[in-house]
């Protein structure tokens, strides 16, 4: 009976452990993913630079809110221009909503006139699960030392309505502005909002 209980609690504990989100301030887990051009990107190769991770799903209305309004593209342009590496990650599994082949992804990138450094394909959800990403969009900012300095929502108004964008505070912009100015991030963690990431069922 006792062993059973122990086994059971271990399983539960393991399940909980698997869901751990690396907290703000901890080291960002490394990953290695292919982008839409077939090139491999790892986090470690960008050490020394600020890195933004953005979870992406072109079918999700919350993602569309920020791309349809040109909000995301502007943000990408502003900060890649300042030397920030912007990696957009699609963790939708094959067959699920938002899954992209390299070709389809390239098409969307040109149609939407995106400005990210690269769009990485993560159909097995490895990077997504390592970061505990649950939403699209889900935003993470990593500092040059490889520590997470911001994680959470893109902005303060949880809605799919692009009309809400002008009145909301963009947390990612704030985090990057503060970091680049050498200040600590005042709002380092928020509750992300959006669609669920369409992970492969395990």
């Amino acid at each position, binding site marked *: 009976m006792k062993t059973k209980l122990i086994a059971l609690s271990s399983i539960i504990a393991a399940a909980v452990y698997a869901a751990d989100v690396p907290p703000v301030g901890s080291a960002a887990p490394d990953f290695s993913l292919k982008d839409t051009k077939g090139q491999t990107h790892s986090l470690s190769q960008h050490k020394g630079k600020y890195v933004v991770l953005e979870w992406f799903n072109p079918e999700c209305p919350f993602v569309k809110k920020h791309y349809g309004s040109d909000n995301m593209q502007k943000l990408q342009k502003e900060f890649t221009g300042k030397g920030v590496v912007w990696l957009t990650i699609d963790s939708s599994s094959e067959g699920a909503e938002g899954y992209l082949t390299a070709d389809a992804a390239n098409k969307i990138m040109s149609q939407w006139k995106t400005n990210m450094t690269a769009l990485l394909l993560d159909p097995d959800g490895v990077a997504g699960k390592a970061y505990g990403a649950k939403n699209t969009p889900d935003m993470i900012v990593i500092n040059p030392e490889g520590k997470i300095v911001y994680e959470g929502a893109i902005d303060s108004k949880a809605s799919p309505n692009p009309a809400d964008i002008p009145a909301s505070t963009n947390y990612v912009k704030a985090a990057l502005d503060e970091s680049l100015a050498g200040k600590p991030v005042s709002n380092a963690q*928020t509750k992300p909002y959006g669609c669920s990431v369409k992970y492969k069922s395990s």
Partner: protein
Amino acid sequence: MNFETVPLPIPGPMVKVRMIWVRSLIALGLLALAHSTIAQNYQGKELVHATLLADTSAIVPGKPFTAGVLLRVAPGWHTYWKYSGDAGLPTEIKWNLPPGWKVGEIQWPIPLKTNDPGDIQTYGYQDELLLMQEITPPSKIDISPVKLSAQVDWLVCERICIPGNAKLELELPTSTTAEPKNSELFARYRRLVPQNFPDGKTATVNWTRTGNDLLLKITSDQIANYQNIDFFPAPQGNETVVGHPTVTSRSANQVTFKIPIESPDKNVSALPGVIVFSKSPNGNDRTGWELAAEQAAATSNQIAQPSRSLATFLLFGFIGGFILNLMPCVLPVISLKIFGFIKQAGQSRARIFRSGVAFTAGIFVWFMALAILLVALKGAGRDVTWGGFQFTNAYFVLALSVIVLIFALNLFGVFEISLPQSLQRGMLASGDRTDDFGSFFQGVFATVLATPCTAPFLGTALGFAFSQSAVVILAMFAAVAAGMSAPYLLLSAQPAWMRFLPQPGPWMVHVKQFMGFLLIATLLFLLYVLGAQRGLDGAIWASCFLLIVAIACWMKGAFILPTTSGAKRAVVVLLMLLLLLGSGVYFIGDKFQSSKIDIAETSASSGGWQSFTPERLQTERDAGHAVFVDFTAAWCLTCKFNEKAVLETSDVRDAFQRHAVVKLKADWTNGDPQITKLLQQFGRPGVPLYVLYPGKSHEPIVFPELLTKSILLDKLETITVASR
């Protein structure tokens, strides 16, 4: 999407054909009102059908009624609760009412909890949902009918998510009387709305925060009636990021939830939410208790207020005091006292009882003095912990060493303790007063020695007392004192039991001398503590002073006899004082005072133990390592015993190694304030304390103060799987 199908009664099958909708609405009697219904279509399929309706046929001025937004959703799709969980968005309703009208909060039915791949947990509704709100019209209405309108925004998801919205209108006539409408529908959803949290007799709430986890403990007899109990959190705003609540323990009338707070810098001590009861997860019989924001906040103020009553804690204090007698640090005094009883066995009953009372009084006086000191220090805002302001102070230990030495020399027969004759005479002519004074002093002495031993019960009781008012602290200390003195008082009041004790005789002298050696052993221990605090030099200088004290005692015994003349007596006393003063100034005031110990030297890095710092603990935990912290101090005998008997045995050492547990030693010998703070976080007034942090997001496991191998090994086995 793998929503479990919940058989909510739906009139007719859910199909997208509009006609069937209309029919079912007619069946519900909804179309009789001038409401508007709006459908959301997606790829030619109707996803959501929204309708505004009321539970009344007419508006009576000043009389509140309930309006509801009915959302019917295509099979497989769902909308979200007020807290959507890891993804999604709650439905929003904005009313457009004439001036003077009031609208209440949305009465959210208890949602369903769903888990999706990637450990995504959401709270939502499928098939059909009625979101009710109470509307209070003004007491005077000029127009009829009245048009009420509401803007509804929702997010509906299957695998994909589609936002939808509708502007709904409802026209109701104004009248002096009204008939209920849509009664069945409203009644059905009212049953699904959580009830207010019951009063303190039915259920109690207790929030605690341990690291990044909130612990919610609900105590109620209702718990036994349900197989499935859950907590659905409803954090407000987007700055609190909440993980998935889990049930950590459950008994017949108590359930504890652990709710990880993933935004750890935010000072969250409680959360609003709903306690959900059902026979099976997402069961259609689900009922709930609403833990409102004010309530969560109100109960969080009572964190320090344990559910046990004051009386229970006083009882614990009493038992703890009793157990203090068995602690290694008090044992030598016990021997003293038992020896005293043996000596008294031949004396009169009244005299024995008086001695018992004097001993008890000694214990009480010391404890009360401590309590008053604590209250005063607490008032002054100082960090006060049991034993901390005593044994972490080297001068306290030194003073204790002197007292122990004097007692030992007395037992060896080097000198006799007698009060100056004048004082003796003044106190009362009868000679046995000295005896009483001795008993009183022994009582004080026993208690002084007992302070570093936080016996298991005492720990809880004092931990409780420290967060309390002055009166409670005094009561608690009195309870401990009563517990500690109870056996002596009993023995002295019931001399019949002392018949079992042997008769006095010459053997008593031998026993007395032997007891002296026990005190010398105690003295060695105290010197060891001094050594840990002030280094070898400090211990040696202290010993030099002790030697002079011993010589002074010998002088008293050898040269001051009852027959000694006043002049000679004065000379000897003067010499004694000079010696003590001179050595005190030199050995203690100068040498001992300046003995310092290199902190790095004290850090126990042997046997794989590393020095504890809060940063170190955080780093190891962040790295996902399991960490065991041994809160210890050189003067804590129980700690030393646990270390030798459990922590440093080969099987425990192997188990630590096998499970890659990082071992940290938090040395409280000198009362490190950072360690004091952590002890207080665990509600402990002192050491020992053993804590195992299994992994990042797991609740730390606190071990009992008397550690056993089996319990430690057991726990190590359970956590390690989790942290891999």
